[in-house]
């Protein structure tokens, strides 16, 4: 997030796009509702009638995969009605002409048609956002998990820049990270082309710095992303995979294909707290401690670094991931080991400018947001104030709307989209162990519009087969107008009725993110 969570309660207009906030990030959802209660106007753009729609002043029920058309349409209205921030565009951005060059192809009437929304609602949403003083944009995987995900994010930035809403209190471009420490895993350089703090592997200076600090020669060639690695396993280029605290055999797209690839591995090492679907396939499984059993830090979606503390002991012989990795490095012949998680953070701070000011001692007292280069730096609640990371001016990166990789056809006439529900988390390795949650939401389901259900002769609660080009699952039908005709929704949490047996592994060319949010599917009676 460019801004801080707590700012939302002061907002005048809140724009939520591709985020089912009250279910996936409930405590931010609650704060958005606090803002609405205080008088803020809420605009929601989503293919489903999510709970936040109840609080929305405008609900744009867009067709899955049409985010970029929508954003371009909003910008078209804002520019043609002269509502953009001329001062800001002139003094703090470049590429406005290029932006208009693209956006002019998206008059509201055309966009309303592409997205399947009311043209007046679209115009009103654009006016509300542009004219508000404090207006944050929140988005999540509904924007990113498309074969055009990167362009979607850039289009959001374009919109915010156009209206002078980057680097300003109560505004910003605010992605909601889905996992407790996904921000931290990125910050820590668990990315094929980056060391900590996004220092590039390709940059010889950065590499030299880490070589000095670690006392070894480091590889130059950038590595493979998760999705590329699966393909490399299939080709036999990757023979050993070490999976720590992840469950790709439920979270990857086109699961049947991933499973086949994993079976080809000569060595699959899985380190986890439960015997996950992935661990069941492993050659060796290492039992790890969970968050309540160890010391360390997580970095939240607003870049705030916070402590976790040991409250109980790990079960049986389980060890913390830190202890396991430390011992493995020793046995693999590395001698400069660190003594503890606390000392590890000290090394991170010494090598990572944005984390330079963090230590356990300080984080016990206060929890600043990065960039926080020194121990006396207060942290950075708002990014890009007065200056962008690329310099004085931000660059507009306009993008044309491209339909999702897979379109409905005669054989697969429905658009399948996936997401989360309130009562479960990711692949349910943790929430699935709560009998109470399982009683509330224990089985996979498909949401289907009453018109489609009638055509197929489906009753509420019927068992149905959902098929795509990649697989099929059997789930319960939930007949509801939360989804429009032609659209179906399956939560991705459940192993039995796994949405990801159906999803498309078409990738965004830059971020390599799979297109989880749209694929073609069909529903049949069982």
């Amino acid at each position: 997030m460019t801004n801080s969570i707590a700012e939302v309660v002061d907002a005048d207009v809140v724009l939520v796009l591709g985020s089912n906030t009250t279910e996936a990030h409930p405590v931010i959802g609650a704060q958005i509702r606090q803002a609405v209660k205080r008088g803020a106007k809420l605009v929601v753009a989503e293919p489903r009638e999510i709970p936040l729609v109840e609080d929305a002043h405008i609900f744009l029920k867009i067709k899955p995969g049409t985010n970029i058309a929508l954003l371009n349409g909003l910008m078209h209205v804002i520019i043609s009605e002269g509502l953009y921030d001329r001062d800001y565009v002139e003094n703090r951005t470049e590429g406005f002409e290029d932006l208009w060059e693209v956006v002019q192809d998206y008059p509201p009437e055309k966009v309303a048609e592409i997205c399947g929304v009311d043209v007046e609602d679209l115009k009103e949403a654009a006016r509300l956002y542009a004219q508000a003083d404090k207006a944050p944009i929140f988005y999540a995987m509904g924007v990113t998990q498309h074969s055009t995900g990167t362009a979607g994010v850039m289009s959001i930035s374009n919109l915010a820049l156009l209206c002078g809403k980057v680097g300003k209190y109560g505004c910003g471009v605010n992605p909601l990270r889905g996992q407790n420490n996904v921000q931290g895993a990125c910050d820590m350089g668990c990315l094929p082309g980056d060391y900590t703090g996004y220092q590039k592997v390709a940059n010889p200076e950065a590499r030299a710095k880490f070589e000095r600090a670690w006392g070894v020669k480091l590889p130059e060639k950038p590595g493979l992303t998760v999705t590329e690695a699966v393909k490399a396993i299939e080709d036999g280029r990757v023979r050993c995979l070490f999976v720590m605290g992840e469950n790709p055999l439920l979270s990857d797209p086109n699961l049947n294909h991933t499973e086949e690839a994993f079976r080809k591995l000569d060595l699959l090492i899985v380190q986890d707290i439960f015997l996950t679907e992935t661990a069941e396939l492993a050659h060796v499984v290492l039992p790890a401690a969970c968050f309540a059993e160890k010391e360390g830090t997580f970095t939240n979606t607003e870049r705030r670094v916070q402590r976790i503390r040991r409250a109980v002991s790990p079960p049986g012989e389980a060890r913390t991931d830190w202890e396991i990795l430390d011992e493995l490095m020793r046995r693999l012949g590395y001698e400069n080991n660190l003594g503890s998680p606390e000392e590890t953070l000290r090394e991170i701070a010494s090598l990572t400018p944005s984390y330079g000011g963090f230590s356990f001692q300080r984080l016990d007292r206060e929890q600043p947001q990065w960039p926080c280069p020194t121990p006396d730096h207060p942290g950075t609640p708002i990014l890009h104030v007065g200056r962008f990371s690329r310099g004085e001016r931000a660059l507009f990166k306009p993008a044309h709307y491209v339909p999702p990789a897979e379109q409905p056809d005669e054989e697969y006439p429905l658009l399948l989209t996936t997401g989360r529900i309130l009562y479960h988390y990711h692949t349910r390795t943790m929430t699935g162990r709560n009998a109470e949650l399982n009683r509330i939401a224990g089985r996979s389901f498909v949401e289907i519009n009453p018109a489609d259900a009638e055509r197929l002769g489906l009753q509420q609660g019927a068992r149905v087969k959902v098929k795509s080009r990649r697989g099929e699952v059997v789930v319960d039908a939930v007949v509801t107008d939360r989804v429009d005709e032609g659209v179906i929704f399956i939560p991705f949490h459940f192993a039995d009725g796994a949405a990801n047996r159906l999803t498309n592994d078409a990738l965004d060319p830059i971020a390599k993110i799979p297109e989880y949010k749209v694929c073609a599917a069909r529903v049949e009676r069982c």
Partner: protein
Amino acid sequence: MLKLTIDGRPVEVSEGTTILEACQFLGIEIPTLCHLEQLKAEGSCRMCVVEVEGVKNLQVSCATPCWDGMVVQTKSERVVSFRRLILELLLANHDTDCFNCPATGRCKLYQYAMEYGVEGSRFVRFKEHHPKDESSEFFNYDPSKCILCRRCVRVCNDLQVNHTLSLKNRGPDTWVGLPFDKLFKDSNCVSCGNCVSVCPTGALTAKAAKSFRIWEVTKTRTTCPYCGVGCQMDLLVKNGEVVGVEPAHGRANPGILCVKGKWAYHFINHPDRLKTPLIRKDGQLQPVSWDEALDYVVEGIKKIKEESGPDAIAGFSSARVTNEENYLFMKMMRAVVGTNNVDHCARL
């Protein structure tokens, strides 16, 4: 700055500070039942009254701003006898079967009654209590324990903004209920449990609450392991097991949690947890010692590295583990294994 005197002690506070806040600053304990620091003062329970020189009536300290030259008494005879009266009035309608109450030990009404020497009530109960609602998967509601402090109602409406709980009827018939007198399980309740976290008595209690008394648990401040919001919370631990979770006041969470943060902690002590390393032998995963497992991993990595080079090895790190562990994983893959094939599930 405003200068005032509380119980004979001078204090300076900024404009807008309430008497309660000034007392807290001085470390003077003021009893409160309805006060919630995240929300505007309600001043409804009247337990926090104090005497202000020159003002005829007792003032609620939570809602009265300080002024320059103010002289405050927090424990005068008049204040104490008023608080005793409040407690007696509350006890008149309160089921005092404390022996059976899950809130024993943490009930504020009980605590204040002891502190102020109130052993019963001169007043006679005249109202029938509404029936218990035990329909929620996570908590029970016993209206006979409710003191109408409205903390639950305000948390539900002003912080969670879910509008499930409200005050119903008027005067002596007032009670906390749900729309159309529905049960929790049939209502729009999202089981966030924030009402349970703020209830000062045994009206709203976790179903698990009877398994521990508050003096048996230790609290550990930590960060929620679920989504990326990073809510701060306290783990309640009894005999080495997590038995409950309470919201803390974090920068990202104003003293509230969601259904997962509040209730989904059972995985920690779950019997399915992996307890020993496993190696596949004859097609089956079988328990082995750490030494055997670690050697197996090390030999395997070395062999493949020798045969096919370091890039034949890839690692998926985790968005679930700590920064320090992610750093170590990345360092191991790059500095020790010798490949940049390290990623995690940010995209998934």
